[in-house]
């Protein structure tokens, strides 16, 4: 389990290199690039911000879009606060590490101790590597030229796909993912940047409504032995619908 957590941390940390290069290529200084990785520490939002700034967006619009994109971290926090059961005093520190990858690793664990270790190991290794590689990327931006030539722009979505894969096992989960993709892409040209991802969250109530309508038939996706949504370690969850 610790090896899984380290693996995720290392792989995602390396994509920090891609961010460093992209950010420097977007006209941010090395200091600005590193400040963003140190203080914001949520990859997709950082990419969104430098992308919007490079595209000539106003600083305010660009940062609002980036914060919108990070809204999902609040939902991750909702799940994590149950599983981690952290003392109030620790939460402001832990909050900085509530991101896609730490959530995915934590939710894949069962038992509070394993969840906490997974969260801490992933969070710390990812933070160190993300910031180190951001610095290296920003410094090496000129040397490497166009990052797209090296395929580094595929690292981000591949990370998301790898995180998503173990979460889509049941028909309900697949339906949510499929509708979210349609919403996320379909609304792209209609809504401001960053908003379509949030709109994709509507896939959840849409699918749950559909599932509820045929609830008279026994649903195939009840609690599973190795559920990645963390419900196994939660005894209050179960056949309660």
């Amino acid at each position, binding site marked *: 389990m610790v090896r899984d957590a380290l*693996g995720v941390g290392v792989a995602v940390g390396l994509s920090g290199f891609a961010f460093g290069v992209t950010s420097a290529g977007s006209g941010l200084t090395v200091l600005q690039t590193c400040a963003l990785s140190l203080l914001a520490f949520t990859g997709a939002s950082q990419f969104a911000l430098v992308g919007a700034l490079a595209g000539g967006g106003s600083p305010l619009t660009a940062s609002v879009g980036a914060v919108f994109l990070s809204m999902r971290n609040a939902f991750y926090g909702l799940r994590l606060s149950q599983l981690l059961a952290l003392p109030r005093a620790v939460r402001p520190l832990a909050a900085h590490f509530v991101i896609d990858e730490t959530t995915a690793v934590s939710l894949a664990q069962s038992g509070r101790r394993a969840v906490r270790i997974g969260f801490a190991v992933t969070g710390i290794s990812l933070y160190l590597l993300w910031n180190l590689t951001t610095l290296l990327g920003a410094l090496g931006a000129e040397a490497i030229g166009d990052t797209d030539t090296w395929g580094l722009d*595929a690292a981000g979505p591949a990370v998301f796909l790898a995180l998503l894969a173990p979460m889509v096992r049941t028909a309900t989960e697949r339906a949510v993912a499929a509708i979210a993709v349609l919403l996320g892409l379909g609304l792209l040209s209609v809504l401001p940047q960053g908003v379509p991802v949030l709109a994709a969250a509507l896939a959840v109530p849409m699918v749950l409504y559909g599932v509820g309508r045929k609830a008279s038939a026994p649903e195939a996706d009840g609690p599973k032995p190795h559920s990645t949504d963390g419900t196994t370690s939660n005894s209050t969850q179960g056949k309660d619908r």
Partner: protein
Amino acid sequence: MNIWTAIAVTAVGCYAVKLAGLLVPVGALERPLVKRMAALLPVALLAALTAQQTFADGRTLVLDAKAAGLAAAAVALLLRAPFLLVIAAAVLVTAGVRAMAG
């Protein structure tokens, strides 16, 4: 200075969002429906992010070498390859397709 403003707003905003999720009272989550929704939300958001970062350039849809890279990553995932190999497959195939396309 403008860029620093954007960085500051982003950093503060992103941190506030993260902290808000951890501080919401547990009682608000006791309802089964809320729990189910919270469990499915990461699925929806990650799926949308994957699709957008693969097929979107700004606000327009594109089909480029990244799609081949993501297909390679998907195959690697189906073969139960380790995480690093999945990412490496996406990067290498994307770079390879671009190299061949000139």
